[in-house]
């Protein structure tokens, strides 16, 4: 019988930052589709994503990609499959959208001949054709996040990490961004770190709840939510009980 391999698997992960244990014995499983990493501000979401990207060193535990451990030195093969939109990423105001995407493509060590077509694909996928020659400084906050998402998904990465991508967007922009995330999740693993229940309700099929560096829940959103239909209120009730009740997974 063939063993099913979870694309991204985090087991027993401990991460220290500044001598303090910020991630404690964390577990996360992410398969194709959107996996929400849900938790209040300061819960350890960014640290967990940082451990996956290699930004923060892993104290103990392991991170696997397609069954291969990647928590030591990041292999080029793993990095080539990874896309990341950090929470605080900005680009120089005078940079043009096409230049941002060209740089993102260059970072993936794409052959010079293929770079132009990769940029075109990213513009199309991100619905940025009308913004391609605009300077970043001329874009609205929502448009800048779209550029960031497009930059995170250039060269067709199989795993995309999004850290609070909808913070600062108005409801309409957020709704549009949710559509883009759902669209980007087609055939990919997306891990969406957020503290907004709307993000989870609108995009995620799996959820991992993290609080004070500890994972409290790993599973399907359906199993987590109080309501049969996944609603923000249902998620709020479940999260409230989880955060105030006894620790359980």
């Amino acid at each position, binding site marked *: 019988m063939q063993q099913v391999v979870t694309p991204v698997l985090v087991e027993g992960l401990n991460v220290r930052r500044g001598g303090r244990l910020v991630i404690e014995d964390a577990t996360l499983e992410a398969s194709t589709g959107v996996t929400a990493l849900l938790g209040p501000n300061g819960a350890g979401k960014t640290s967990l994503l940082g451990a996956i*990207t*290699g*930004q923060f060193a892993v104290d103990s535990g392991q991170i696997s990609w397609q069954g291969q451990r990647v928590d030591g030195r990041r292999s080029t093969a793993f990095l080539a499959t990874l896309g990341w939109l950090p929470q605080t*990423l*900005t680009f*120089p105001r005078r940079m043009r959208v096409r*230049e941002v995407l060209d740089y993102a493509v260059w970072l993936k060590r794409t052959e010079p001949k293929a770079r132009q077509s990769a940029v075109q694909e990213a513009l199309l996928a991100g619905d940025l054709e009308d913004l391609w020659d605009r300077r970043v400084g001329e874009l609205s906050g929502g448009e800048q996040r779209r550029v960031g998402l497009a930059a995170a998904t250039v060269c067709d990465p199989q795993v995309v990490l999004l850290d609070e991508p909808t913070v600062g967007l108005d409801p309409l922009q957020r709704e549009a961004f949710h559509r883009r995330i759902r669209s980007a999740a087609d055939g990919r693993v997306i891990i969406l770190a957020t503290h907004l229940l709307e993000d989870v309700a609108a995009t995620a099929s799996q959820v991992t709840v993290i609080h004070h560096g500890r994972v409290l829940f790993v599973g399907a959103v359906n199993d987590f939510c109080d309501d049969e239909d996944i609603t923000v209120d249902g998620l709020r009730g479940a999260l409230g009980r989880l955060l105030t009740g006894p620790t359980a997974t």
Partner: protein
Amino acid sequence: MRIFRGTRKRAWVALTAMLLLQGASVIWTSRAGWVGWMPAGGATLERTSLFGACILSAAVAWAAVSLRAHNAEPWARVGVRSVQGLYRGPFWWGLSASLVTNCVLATTVGVATRQSLTSLMLTRYLLSVAAVVAASACAAALGVLIAKFTPPFIAVVASFVLPYAIAIGLGAYLSESPVSAWAVPDLHAFDYAWPAIETPIFRAASLGSIAAAIVFELHRRTTLRKVALWAASAATAGLFFTAGMVQPIPEASSVECQGAVPVVCFDGTQDAIRAGYLAQLDDGLRELPRSTWPAVVTATEQQGAPEDAVALPPVEGKYRPSRTTPPGAVTAILGDVTFNTDCASPDRIQLSAAMTLWWRAHVGLPTGGGTYAGQNSFSGPEFAQARASISRLEARIAQHPDQVIADAATQLHDCSRPAQPLP
């Protein structure tokens, strides 16, 4: 514009223009110290790298720091590129601008010093060029390091100040230490003597190996980087060992004399000024009675000149002897020497001031200040009195020019003769 990769074309052009402007300024303002003399030309080229390194380092830091200033470095590192790969762009962007600048400046200085070209001088000049190029690579790498490791808001300023502080520290505070052999050489040190040939060889090798190690590190060639570092260690040890060794420049000491009365002598560093110098000297001598002409004139005060020689070194600014002949300088100095006095008598001092002022006016040079850069203005009390009586002196000289001038010159140089009052 790809600021993260540091390949902005317009910024590159601006940087090149800035480096060229800076280098050209240094070369032009110090021309009196090196034109026509290749050893000093090499030192001048190296002096252009003093502020050039500051500009280059700051520009590279400006291009490189944008990654961290926008919190983009962790994001970029999730790409497949190495950290070195991320910062390679700004390094080569800045260094290529510097290489173009150095080529232009080296060619300019080389052409302007070709009169003194010998194979040894050319070798030393090329060593200077190599040292400048290597120092540029070190400056660009310093910009990258500062951009990588200092707070982004201070990176550009720090990267401008640090190369200057290092250069000044080496030149001023560590001048007695062998470490100062890395410093930019003093222009005057190349007038008649220069460091032993081993020193510039080791200096170029030391800086070049360090630069090579930086390049290999940026291109992640570990073995080559190690080799370059070993080479840098050996070359630096050699540099420190040979630091301070000086030898005379043979071509500089060779004095050549020409003409009859007066005989005019030049040393090997003054080939470029001969024609202009002689023309000005002839202009001056025509206005003096033959009896006051010096028998031998030397254009420098160096050893090896005949004992009875009168030294008339051209001066420009702080450069003495100057390797250029400012208009009127030799004519003016001829008057200064002819009408100078070592006698303590007030009458003679007064006569000297009056004759000097008359000379300047007579040969059409200004009397209100210095005729050429670096010359004293005539501001003492004796000059104030001389100005008051200048018209009477002019009238007297007009009647018997040769007699009055010769008599005055004799009185000024022979303190034992009784002084005659001014007219």
